[in-house]
C-alpha cells in the first residue's frame, strides 16, 4: 500500500517520471531526476497522504528510504 501511494505521489508531482520502473532501489535524484523543489513537493504530499509531519529535514536518497521512514513512523504496509 505504501509503495502504491508513493508511486501515485511521484506521478502527481511529475507525470513524466517513469513510475512503472520504480522500485525501492530507485534513486530519487539520479533515476527520477528530482531536484530539491520536487523533493520538497513530495515531502508535503507525503505529509498529507499519510498524516505525518516532518519535524526535521529528512534526506531521502532512494524510494526505499522513503518507505523505510514511513514504516518507522508507524505506517502499515
Amino acid at each position, binding site marked *: 500500500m505504501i509503495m502504491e501511494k508513493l508511486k501515485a505521489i511521484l506521478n502527481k*508531482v*511529475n*507525470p*513524466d*517520471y517513469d513510475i512503472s520502473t520504480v522500485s525501492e532501489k530507485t534513486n530519487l535524484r539520479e533515476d527520477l*531526476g528530482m*531536484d*530539491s*523543489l*520536487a523533493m*520538497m*513537493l513530495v515531502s*508535503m*504530499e507525503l505529509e*498529507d497522504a499519510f498524516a505525518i509531519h*516532518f519535524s*526535521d*529535514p529528512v534526506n531521502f536518497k532512494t524510494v526505499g528510504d522513503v518507505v523505510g521512514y514511513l514504516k518507522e513512523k508507524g505506517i502499515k504496509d
Partner: protein
Amino acid sequence: MGAKRITVVIDTMGSDRGPETIVKGACQALLDSEDLDVCLVGDKDAIEKAIEDNKAPKDRIRVVPTTEVITNFDHPVMALQSKKDSSLVKALTILRDEETCVGLVNAGSTGALLVGSMMFLSKPGERVRPALAAVLPAEKGGFVCLVDTGANIDCLPSMLVQFAHQGSDFMKDMYRIESPKVGLLSNGAEETKGNKLVKETHQMLKEDKSINFVGNIEGTNALSGDCDVLVCDGFAGNQVLKNSEGIARRIITDIVKYSKQTGKPEFMALVQHLMATYDFNSLGGGIVLGVDKPVIKAHGAANESSIRNTVKMLVNLAHNKNIYV
C-alpha cells in the same frame, strides 16, 4: 464609504543594500497608491530609523519585528523549518493568514522564497512546482512573460506545459489579455527544431487546446512581441534574461561613450529612455507563479526605485484581480 484598503507585505532583510533601501522604496510606493498600506518585516530598529528618515506616513505602515534572517548561504528547506523568527517565515505567514494582504516582496534568497512560497501559499491537493517569471518590454509594445527564469534548471516536458499555463494565466490577470500567445524558446521556428525537451514539449503544447500556442520562438525574437508568454527551462530562461540585461547595458554604455566622444549631449535623452525601459530597477522583480497569492522576488541589488516599482506591480495585480482583496 472609502475604498477597501490593501496591504503589501515586504521582507526588508536579505538584500545586498540592506533594509534601509527596501524601506525607502516602500515609503515611496505609499505615495503612488492611496489605498495601500505596507507591512514591513525585519530588524525593528533599522526599519523604524528608515521610516523616520523618509518622513513616511506612519499610520499606513505596520512594523513586524523579527530576529533572524535567511541568507543565500542557508539551505532553504532547513532554514525555513528552523528559523521560525526569520523575516521570510513571518512575512509568508502574514501573507497567508491576512485577507487584506495582496502580495509579498522579497529581495533575499531566491531558493528560500520559492520553497517557502510553496510551503505557505499552496493548498493540499492543489500544489504545483512554482516557477519564476520575468516580465520584459516587447519590441511591438506590451510585455513578454518569460517563464521559467531560473527556478527549475532541469525540466521535463510536463513542467514546461505547466509553465505555459501559469504564464498564460498571469498575463490574463496582469494585462487583461484574453488569449495570451504562448511561444516555446527554441533554436529555430520550425517544429522539428530544438533539443529532445523542446520537441516533446512542442507536441504537447500543440495538442493542448486550452492555451494559444503559436509555436517555436528563436532567441532573436524572444522580446519581439510575437508571443505574450515565452516558455523555456530555467537554465535557458536565465540566459535569455541575463543576456538581455548584458546587451542592454552594453548598448547604453556605448551610447554614453559616443555622446561624450562626439560632444553630442542630445544622445543622453536616448540613454535615459533606454534606462527607463530596460534597467531591471525600472521593471520590478521576478514573479513566483503557481502559488495562491502573488510573491515577487526583487533583484538582490534592487534600489529603492526597484522596490517601489515592485510594490506597484502587486498593487496593479490586486486591482486587476479582485480575488486578492
